[in-house]
């Protein structure tokens, strides 16, 4: 990994502008459109995921250094467990039960 000596922090600025844009798009879609609940959730959910990726790669430099690969495995594993916890809990606790 080479030292960062560029005069202008291009990637940071791009990342920042992108995250602002993503946030506003999400807000507009959620608050101003009349799409179905499901559609909105899928769109704003995807935008959130993109934005999180932006932070991880553009700001946190997840892949840099001799442990870049380890970091990717680590975060991927963390995300896997996170998805299992959230999706699994909702699935298990909402299906089958007659009255809720």
């Amino acid at each position, binding site marked *: 990994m080479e030292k960062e000596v560029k005069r202008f922090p291009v990637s940071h600025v791009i990342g920042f502008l992108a995250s602002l844009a993503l946030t506003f798009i999400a807000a507009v879609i959620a608050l101003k459109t009349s799409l179905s609940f499901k559609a909105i959730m899928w769109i704003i959910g995807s935008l959130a995921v993109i934005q999180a990726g932006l932070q991880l790669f553009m700001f946190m430099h997840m892949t840099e250094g001799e442990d870049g690969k380890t970091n990717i495995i680590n975060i991927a594993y963390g995300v896997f467990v996170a998805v299992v916890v959230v999706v699994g809990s909702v699935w298990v606790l909402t299906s089958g039960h*007659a009255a*809720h």
Partner: protein
Amino acid sequence: MLKYIKLFVALFAVIPVLLLTGCETNMVVFEPQGPVARSIMELINWSLMWMLLVVVVVFAMFGFIVWKYRERKENMNYEPPEEHGNTLFEIIWTAIPILIVIALIIPTVKTLYALEEVPEGYENEEPLTVHVTAADWKWIFSYPEQGIETVNYVNIPEDRPVNFKLTSAGTMQSFWVPALAGQKYAMAKMETQLILVAENPGSYVGKNSNFNGRGYTGMEFEVLAQTQQDFNQWIADVKNTAPVLTEEKYEEMLKPTHLGRLTFKNTHLAWVNHADEDAQTYTNPELYRYNGYQGKTFEEEDNYMNENSETESGDHHHEENHDDHGNHGGDDHGQH
């Protein structure tokens, strides 16, 4: 050394024998009295067969290898070969367990789905609905169609599906009549369902199997399967002779106690169904202060005891402090 190994092998040889004989002894799980419990038993037997196979294979290999390659005086100079592994072998012992798992999962899934439905052969019978309310530490059965209610015993007609609708007035319980069906949890503010059929008239033990506090032991009930006539007769008798359940009496009943059998000619469903999401919560935190240092409890609008907690908790504390040895189960305990 030899002696040790013999002992070793002998010890572990006993185990599968014990497991085998398990199927013939009079264990309740292996003596089903209805199609639901029978379908589970068939699944269990199927799995036992495969598990036995696994156990036999592993034990045999184990015994053989340990016996053959143990260190002896004669082989002290034997230097074992270098051996990294063997792909073929490794594939074999990955594949065979996968096949066994497939052999097990298919009937498991089938049974899981079948248990949700009225058992085969009984589809044309109109199921009897019984609401079950588990409370600390008693079982309350309401028959909405017949309009009667029983405590700690439930009579059902034979050869007719019974649809138990389970809920709880507080803690979590598990409704289990091993001779007739597997168990299911009863939880407050929700409803689970358990369908079973009793093939023969008879009395079966039912119990709570999910630990729910000090009075958990002895939270049992009797399931009495009767002929349809006897059942109808019983309903009529109850209608004629049983007392009326009042709301006050009911609230009294929900306190943490063991009760004997009770019978009423109306049901509490008239004023509360604990399965409803916004049903009133008749909790009595004050009555559970019996061990250790007491922390604070939180005032909920629907804590039943809030208004008069002072007096009630005062004398209860005293009386319940000593253990309830002679106190559990009323007359249903151990009557099977």
